[in-house]
């Protein structure tokens, strides 16, 4: 069923009883040409592009729980491509460009709102480093601009501009093409479009092991029985280490809980995404009116999808220091996702150390913005057996060669 204004009116007149499910609930087949493990936005995007671009015939997505229920449904929905290194800028900007056309491509409103992403500098030294970063980003072809404190004051009046503020505002930089998108809609839009192209999306199907022929992986063991696969892709974020363990190798990844929280909904007060280099805090206002905010990782590795109290308190304190007027708002919800953090804060996209398996993981704290390109490059790898030009620098081999893409230090911004 194609979504349109005409369809909305027609269904509305019929009392909204005629809508069909957005995706099929198929019978699980015993074999596929390509199996993608993980039904988040990345995995669903990979399945969609495998059918759409590469015309792979039988494609399945296996999801342990329900689609979009992991980090896809737990992030703060920010999209941007303001990265320091050329490899990263190319990757993330390709993703942002896919986002820009995604509602039309999928016939599903992902509610992309390019309201800008503002990064703050709190001292003269912050500002100097920011100039350097901005110059690098401009050389990478990213649309960023430096702003003075006075310019910022015209755009975001609610910030704490007092001279005795704990984090006084010296300036900042803005990527105007950055913004937010509806995270669930990205998963559901890809799922619906993939399902329409014949992809089997199987929920409640946990991968418990791999099938092998010699050294080659030929499928997966699941809670619903064995499934053979011509090629297998994994896109499971925080659980990448667990799957790698099942396949018999280790990854340069540690899983942490990353928290986020929302305030009670209020009338429009914040018209852009604000990030602070000093505290790592970021905040935006959702279309429902809630302030959505978060900060850094919890202090130790975790597979629990909940954050710990000391970090939650730090996050709230940072936000209130920068936005004193939010002090009397109630906290509505707080949650966490399990994120797969690489040493250099860049993803790993490429062949696994075993044949027949490809990986898209290590996105850490910044996976949502990379969903379209993660899916795009994983699909390319699975269909062609070799790297896409965008994914080659992010091969696992960089940890042996030493050629890291060190955005942890390079970008100097919250992720």
């Amino acid at each position, binding site marked *: 069923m194609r979504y349109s204004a005409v369809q909305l009116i027609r269904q509305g007149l019929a009392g909204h009883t005629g809508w069909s499910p957005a995706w099929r609930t198929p019978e699980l087949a015993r074999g596929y040409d390509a199996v993608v493990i993980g039904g988040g936005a990345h995995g669903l995007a990979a399945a969609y592009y495998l059918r759409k671009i590469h015309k792979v015939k039988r494609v399945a997505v296996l999801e342990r729980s329900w689609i979009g229920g992991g980090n896809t449904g737990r992030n703060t929905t920010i999209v941007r491509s303001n990265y320091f290194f050329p490899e990263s800028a190319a990757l993330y900007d390709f993703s942002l460009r896919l986002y820009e056309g995604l509602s039309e491509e999928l016939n599903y409103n992902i509610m992309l709102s390019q309201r800008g992403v503002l990064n703050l500098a709190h001292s003269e030294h912050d500002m100097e480093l920011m100039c350097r970063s901005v110059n690098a980003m401009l050389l990478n072809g990213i649309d960023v601009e430096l702003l003075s404190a006075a310019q910022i004051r015209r755009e975001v009046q609610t910030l704490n501009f007092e001279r005795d503020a704990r984090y006084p505002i010296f300036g900042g930089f803005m990527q105007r093409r950055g913004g937010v998108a509806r995270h669930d809609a990205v998963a559901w839009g890809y799922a619906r479009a993939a399902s329409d192209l014949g992809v089997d999306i199987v929920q409640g199907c946990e991968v418990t092991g791999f099938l092998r022929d010699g050294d080659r992986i030929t499928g997966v063991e699941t809670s619903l029985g064995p499934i053979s696969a011509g090629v297998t892709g994994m896109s499971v974020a925080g659980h990448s280490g667990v799957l790698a363990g099942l396949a018999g190798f280790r990854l340069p990844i540690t899983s942490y809980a990353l928290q986020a929280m929302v305030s009670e909904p209020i009338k429009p007060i914040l018209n852009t995404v604000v990030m602070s280099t000093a505290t790592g805090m970021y905040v935006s206002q959702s279309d429902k009116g809630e302030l959505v905010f978060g900060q850094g990782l919890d202090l130790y590795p975790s597979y629990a999808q909940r954050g*710990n109290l000391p970090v939650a308190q730090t996050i709230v304190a940072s936000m209130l220091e920068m936005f004193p007027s939010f002090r009397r708002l109630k906290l509505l919800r707080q949650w966490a996702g399990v994120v797969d953090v690489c040493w250099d804060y860049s993803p790993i996209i490429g062949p696994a150390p075993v044949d027949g398996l490809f990986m898209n993981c290590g996105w850490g704290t910044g996976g949502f913005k990379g969903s379209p390109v993660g899916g795009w490059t994983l699909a390319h790898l699975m269909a062609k057996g070799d790297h896409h030009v965008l994914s080659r620098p992010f091969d696992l081999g960089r940890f042996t060669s030493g050629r890291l893409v060190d955005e942890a230090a390079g970008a100097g911004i919250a992720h």
Partner: protein
Amino acid sequence: MLSIPCPFCGPRGEHEFQWGGEPVTRPVPASEVSDARWANYLYLRTNTKGRDRELWCHAGGCGQWFTMERDTMTHEVFESAQISLGRIGA
């Protein structure tokens, strides 16, 4: 908030501590260590889901390093131990 049993100071709140990673042992001699073995030591981790043995430092207290067993799924803390000289990890 975790209550972490420092083997030297007794139980304290988690904000006094710093997580120090999976115990690893540096391969030697350097001249004979391949790039793959070095990467294995420097970067590759088991990233255990469940009960695991970790290094911790009582950074905001006595400053001592020790090992502790903890469940990464439930955050339950088990016993901690002083580090003996010699090998501490695989």
